[in-house]
C-alpha cells in the first residue's frame, strides 16, 4: 500500500513539474536557511563545552565599588585565584589567564606573536586543550616555559622536535624553553592562544604580583569539586576578602565583591566581557528567524497543496468509491508531503554544503567546516524535514480526504472556495514576517551607517597607528618619518580610540574640595596628540612643551570626568589636585567628550597625562593623496632604521570601526535571511497566482470577449494579492517597531526609528509582490480568450 502511495506521489510530482519545482525549491531554500541557522546556533552554544569538566569550571569576577561607581570587571586582582585555591578545599585547581604579546627574535628578525596567554601550571588540567607533546601536569611549572600550537612549533622549528628548544624573547632575560606542543585551540573556545607561557615567569621575583590586591589584570578560573553549590561558595567570599585585603580596601575606598560565573555561560551570557564574547540575544534572534523561514516555506507547501486540491478531488472520490477509508487517504497525502520534504531535504543538504563557505564568511567565523563532519546535524535536519513533511501535510490531507465522492465525481464540486480564507491568512503571515525582516534590515543598516558617520569628537581620518618600541629608537624614527613628504604630523600615545586602555586608581579634588576616589580610564599621550586628533579643549589648555611641569604634574580630563567630580562648569575643574599611579599634580585642561569606545557604550570619564615612557603607539597624520606612496616611504624608513622589527600599521578609522565587526556580521546575516524570506514568500505567491489564474481562466476569457483590456485584467488578478501584502504591512510595522526599538536599546548612541523606514519596506514588499503576481497575470491576460473558453 505504501509503495502505491509513493508511486502515485512521484507520478503526481512529475506530472505537475512546475508546481513541484516551486514547492521543493521553496522548501529546500527554507531548509537550507534553517540548517545554517541550526549550525550557527549550535556553534554559538558549543563555546567552551569541549572541556570534560566544564560544568565545574567557574570564572572569578569582581564588582569593584568605588565612591562614585560600581565597576563590573571580568578580571580580578592578581592574588585572587591562588589565594582562593589555598583557602577553600572545594576549589580543586585554579589558573589565571593573562593575554600578552611576545616578540620572538629568530635569525635577527623580530616576529610579534599576538595570541599569547600566560597561565598557571594547572591550566591544562582544568581545560582540556589537547596536548600533542608534554605532560600536562609538568609543562608550565618553570619560568619561561612555552607550550606552542602545532602551527607555531612548525613555524619556528619545522620538522624538528621542538621540545627542549629555545626561543629568544625580546624583553626577557632568559630564553624561552619549549616544554609542550598543543593542538590548535578550537574556534569555539573563548580562550584563544597560539602560545601558552608559564605564569610563574611573571609572578616570580622580583615582582610580587601574588601580593598585589589592588592590581587587576588577568582573568581567573577555578575548578571546583562537582558537589559544590556555587552560591554557597560565593557566600564565603566576603569573609575571605575581608581577611586578606580588608584594611587596604577601606584605605583605597575600593570595595571588592567576588562572584563565580559558570564558565560555559561566560561566552553568551556574561555582560562583563572577556576574551571573546557572544550574544545570547543574537542566538535567540537567529533561532526565531530560522523558525520563521521554515514556517514561510511550510506555508508555501500548505498553500500550494490545498490550492491544487481541486485537481486531486476526483482521485479522492475514486479511491473512496473503491473502498479507501478517510484515514488511509489522509495517510496517503501526508506521505506525499513527506516525499516532497525529503526531496527538499536532499537538495537542502547539497545547498548547505555549497553555501557553507559563504555563510562562514558572512558570520565572520567558521561556524562549521563541513556539514558532514557532524553527522548528527544531518540527522537533526532529517528529523526537521520529516516533521515539516508531516505537519505541512496534515492540513491538506484533512481537506483532501474529506471530499465527498458524490460531489466530486459528479462534477458539482465547487471550485476551490474551500480554504481560500486560510490560504489568504497564511500569505499574510508570510509577508508579515518578510516585511518585518525588511524593516529590521533597514534599521540595522541605518544604525551601522550612523555609527560610522557619527561625529566622534576626534578626527580619525588619514591617521596611521604604528606600534613602536619606547625609547631612543622611537625618537629617531619620529624625526625621520616627519621628514617624509605627505606626513603632516606625528604624535605619541599609549592608546587610541578603539584600542584598549588601562584604568587607573585615581584621586581627584572634587567640587567640595575633597579628594574623590575613582577608577578612571587613562591615556598617556605626548604634547602633539590632542591637536593631532582634533580634540577640542573646552577649558584650560592642552599639554605644552612650554610648561616643564606638564610632563610630571599635569592632567587633562574630559567633560564626563568634570561632571563626575561634581563641577557644573568645566572651568571650575582647572587647578583641581589629583593623585594617580604615583603622580601628583593639577588639572590643566578639559577636552570635549570624545568616543574612545564603540558607540554602543556611553562616553566614560577619562584622564590623560604626559608620559614618554608609556607611549608605545605612534600616530601619523598623512595627506589624503598619495597614501600608498607615503606608507611605502614610512615602511622604507622603518626598515632602514630597524631591520629586525616587523613594520605594522593600522588606519585609525578602520581600527575604530573594527569594534562594529560583530554588528556588521549580524547585519549581513540579517539581510541575507530577510532576502531569503521574501524570496521564498514570493515563490509561494507565484504558485498561488499561477493557480488562481488557471482557476479564473474562463472568467478572464469571458471578460476579454466582453471587452476588458489587458490592464484591467492584470489589475483584477493582482489586486487581491496586493491587498494581502498591504494587510501584512499593517500587522508587521508595529511588531517590527517594537523588536527593533528593543534592539536599539543596546546602543548608547542610536538612530530614531523613522516613518520612512516602514514606508520603504512596504514599497519594497509591494513592488516585489506585484512583480511576482503580474508576471502570471499578464501571461493569462494576453492569452487568446477563444483558447480558454473552448477548453471548458
Amino acid at each position, binding site marked *: *500500500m505504501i509503495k*502505491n502511495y509513493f*508511486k*502515485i506521489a512521484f*507520478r*503526481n510530482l512529475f*506530472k505537475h513539474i512546475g508546481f513541484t519545482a516551486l514547492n521543493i525549491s521553496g522548501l529546500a531554500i527554507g531548509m537550507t536557511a534553517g540548517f545554517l541557522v541550526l549550525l550557527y546556533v549550535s556553534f554559538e552554544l558549543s563555546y567552551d563545552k569541549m572541556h570534560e569538566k566544564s560544568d565545574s569550571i567557574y570564572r572569578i569576577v569582581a564588582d569593584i565599588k568605588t565612591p562614585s561607581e560600581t565597576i563590573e570587571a571580568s578580571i580580578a586582582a592578581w592574588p585572587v585565584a591562588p589565594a582562593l585555591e589555598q583557602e577553600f578545599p572545594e576549589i580543586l585547581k585554579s589558573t589565571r589567564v593573562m593575554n600578552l604579546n611576545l616578540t620572538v627574535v629568530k635569525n635577527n628578525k623580530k616576529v610579534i606573536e599576538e595570541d599569547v596567554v600566560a597561565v598557571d601550571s594547572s591550566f591544562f588540567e582544568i581545560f582540556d586543550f589537547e596536548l600533542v607533546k608534554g605532560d600536562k601536569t609538568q609543562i608550565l611549572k618553570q619560568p619561561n616555559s612555552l607550550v606552542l600550537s602545532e602551527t607555531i612549533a612548525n613555524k619556528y622549528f619545522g620538522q624538528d622536535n621542538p621540545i627542549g628548544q629555545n626561543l629568544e624573547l625580546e624583553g626577557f632575560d632568559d630564553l624561552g624553553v619549549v616544554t609542550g606542543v598543543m593542538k590548535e585551540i578550537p574556534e569555539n573556545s573563548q580562550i584563544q592562544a597560539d602560545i601558552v607561557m608559564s605564569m610563574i615567569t611573571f609572578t616570580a621575583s622580583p615582582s610580587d604580583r601574588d601580593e598585589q590586591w589592588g592590581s587587576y589584570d588577568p582573568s581567573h578560573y577555578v575548578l571546583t569539586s562537582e558537589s559544590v553549590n556555587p552560591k554557597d561558595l560565593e557566600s564565603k567570599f566576603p569573609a575571605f576578602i575581608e581577611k586578606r585585603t580588608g584594611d587596604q580596601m577601606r584605605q583605597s575606598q575600593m570595595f571588592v565583591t567576588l562572584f563565580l560565573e559558570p564558565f560555559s555561560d561566560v561566552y553568551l551570557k556574561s555582560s562583563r566581557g572577556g576574551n571573546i564574547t557572544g550574544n545570547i540575544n543574537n542566538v535567540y534572534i537567529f533561532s526565531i528567524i530560522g523558525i520563521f523561514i521554515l514556517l514561510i516555506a511550510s506555508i508555501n507547501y500548505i498553500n500550494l497543496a490545498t490550492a491544487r486540491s481541486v485537481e486531486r478531488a*476526483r*482521485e479522492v*472520490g*475514486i*479511491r*473512496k*468509491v*473503491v*473502498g*479507501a*477509508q*478517510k484515514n*488511509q487517504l489522509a495517510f496517503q497525502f501526508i506521505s506525499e508531503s513527506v516525499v516532497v520534504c525529503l526531496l527538499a531535504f536532499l537538495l537542502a543538504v547539497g545547498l548547505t554544503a555549497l553555501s557553507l563557505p559563504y555563510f562562514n564568511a558572512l558570520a565572520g567565523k567558521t561556524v562549521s567546516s563541513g556539514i558532514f563532519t557532524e553527522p548528527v546535524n544531518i540527522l537533526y535536519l532529517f528529523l526537521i524535514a520529516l516533521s515539516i513533511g508531516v505537519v505541512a501535510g496534515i492540513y491538506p490531507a484533512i481537506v483532501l480526504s474529506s471530499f*465527498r*465522492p*458524490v460531489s466530486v*465525481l*459528479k462534477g458539482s464540486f465547487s471550485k476551490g472556495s474551500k480554504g481560500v480564507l486560510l490560504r489568504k491568512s497564511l500569505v499574510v503571515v508570510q509577508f508579515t514576517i518578510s516585511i518585518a525582516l525588511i524593516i529590521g534590515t533597514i534599521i540595522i543598516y541605518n544604525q551601522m551607517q550612523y555609527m560610522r558617520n557619527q561625529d566622534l569628537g576626534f578626527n580619525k581620518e588619514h591617521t596611521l597607528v604604528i606600534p613602536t618600541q619606547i625609547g631612543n629608537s622611537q625618537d629617531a624614527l619620529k624625526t625621520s618619518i616627519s621628514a617624509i613628504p605627505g606626513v603632516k604630523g606625528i604624535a605619541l600615545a599609549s592608546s587610541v580610540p578603539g584600542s584598549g586602555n588601562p584604568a587607573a586608581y585615581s584621586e581627584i579634588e572634587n567640587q567640595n574640595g575633597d579628594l574623590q576616589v575613582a577608577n578612571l580610564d587613562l591615556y598617556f599621550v605626548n604634547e602633539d596628540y590632542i591637536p593631532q586628533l582634533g580634540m577640542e579643549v573646552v577649558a584650560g589648555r592642552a599639554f605644552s612643551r612650554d610648561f616643564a611641569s606638564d610632563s610630571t604634574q599635569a592632567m587633562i580630563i574630559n567633560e564626563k570626568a568634570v561632571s563626575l567630580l561634581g563641577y557644573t562648569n568645566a572651568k571650575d575643574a582647572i587647578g583641581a589636585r589629583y593623585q594617580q599611579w604615583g603622580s601628583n599634580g593639577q588639572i590643566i585642561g578639559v577636552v570635549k567628550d570624545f568616543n574612545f569606545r564603540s558607540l554602543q557604550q556611553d562616553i566614560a570619564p577619562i584622564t590623560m597625562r604626559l608620559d614618554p615612557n608609556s607611549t608605545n603607539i605612534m600616530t601619523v597624520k598623512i595627506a589624503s593623496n598619495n597614501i600608498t606612496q607615503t606608507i611605502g616611504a614610512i615602511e622604507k624608513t622603518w626598515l632602514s632604521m630597524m631591520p629586525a622589527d616587523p613594520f605594522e600599521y593600522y588606519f585609525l578609522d578602520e581600527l575604530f570601526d573594527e569594534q562594529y565587526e560583530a554588528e556588521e556580521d549580524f547585519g549581513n546575516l540579517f539581510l541575507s535571511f530577510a532576502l531569503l524570506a521574501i524570496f521564498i514568500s514570493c515563490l509561494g505567491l507565484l504558485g498561488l497566482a499561477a493557480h488562481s489564474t488557471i482557476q479564473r481562466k474562463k472568467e478572464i476569457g469571458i471578460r476579454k470577449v466582453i471587452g476588458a483590456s489587458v490592464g484591467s485584467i492584470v489589475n483584477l488578478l493582482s489586486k487581491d494579492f496586493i491587498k494581502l501584502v498591504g494587510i501584512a504591512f499593517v500587522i508587521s510595522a508595529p511588531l517590527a517597531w517594537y523588536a527593533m526599538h528593543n534592539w536599539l536599546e543596546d546602543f548608547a548612541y542610536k538612530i530614531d526609528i523613522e516613518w520612512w523606514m516602514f514606508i520603504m519596506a512596504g514599497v519594497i514588499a509591494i513592488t516585489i509582490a506585484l512583480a511576482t503576481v503580474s508576471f502570471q497575470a499578464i501571461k493569462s491576460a494576453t492569452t487568446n480568450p477563444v483558447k480558454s473558453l473552448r477548453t471548458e
Partner: protein
Amino acid sequence: MIQITDLEKFYKTEEVQTIALNKLSFGVKEGEFVAIMGPSGCGKSTLLNILGLLDDPDGGSFMFNGEEVAGYNERKRSELRKHNIGFVFQSFNLIDELTVFENVELPLIYTGVKPAERKKKVEEVLEKMQIMHRRNHFPQQLSGGQQQRVAVARAVVNNPKLILADEPTGNLDSVNGNEVMDLLIDLNEAGTTIIMVTHSEHDAKYSHRIIRMLDGQKVTENILA
C-alpha cells in the same frame, strides 16, 4: 438483496429545499439486472449514490442483504461498500497517474489482499476484459471503450455482489457501448446483480426490469424478462 421503503432525500440551498427522492420504494433480488430511467433531475443519480452507500438517505428504510444500512456512518458504509459493491461511471473515473494494472489493483489494495494474489486476480480480470495487452498503459493512452473496460474490470475485480452502473455507455460510440453492455450481461449471467442508470432505451432493453422515475418518484415498472 435490496429493499428500499419510503426513501427520502432533500437538498437544501440557502432558502430553497429540493426534494430529490420522494418516498421511493422498490426491491431488487439477487441476480437481477435492473435499469433505472428518467429525465435529468428526476433523482436517478441520487438514488444510485444511496444504493452505492456513497450517500445517506434523509428518511425511509434501506435494507441491504437483510441489514438496515440507512443511518450507517461513513466508516461502516465504506466497509460494506468495498466488499460488496462495484461502480462503473459514465466518465470512467480512472486515476490518470496509475497504469491500467494499478487502477484495477486499487480495490484489492484497500481490501487488504496479498500482493501475489492481487497480481493473479488482476491478470485474470484483465484477461477476461481483453485488455491485458494494455496493462502497463496509462488511461489517457487508451480509447474510451478501452477505458470503460478497465473501469468495469476495476468494478468486478473484488467479485462484488452488486454492480452499480451510472450511464456506462454515455461517453461511448455504439460499437464500444455494445461491447460494454455485453460485458455487463456476461457478469449478470455469472450471478452478479446489476443496477444501471441510463438514458438509452437501447441499453435498458438488456435489463430484466425497467424502473422509470419522475420528480423523485417511481412512475412505472416494466418487466422485460
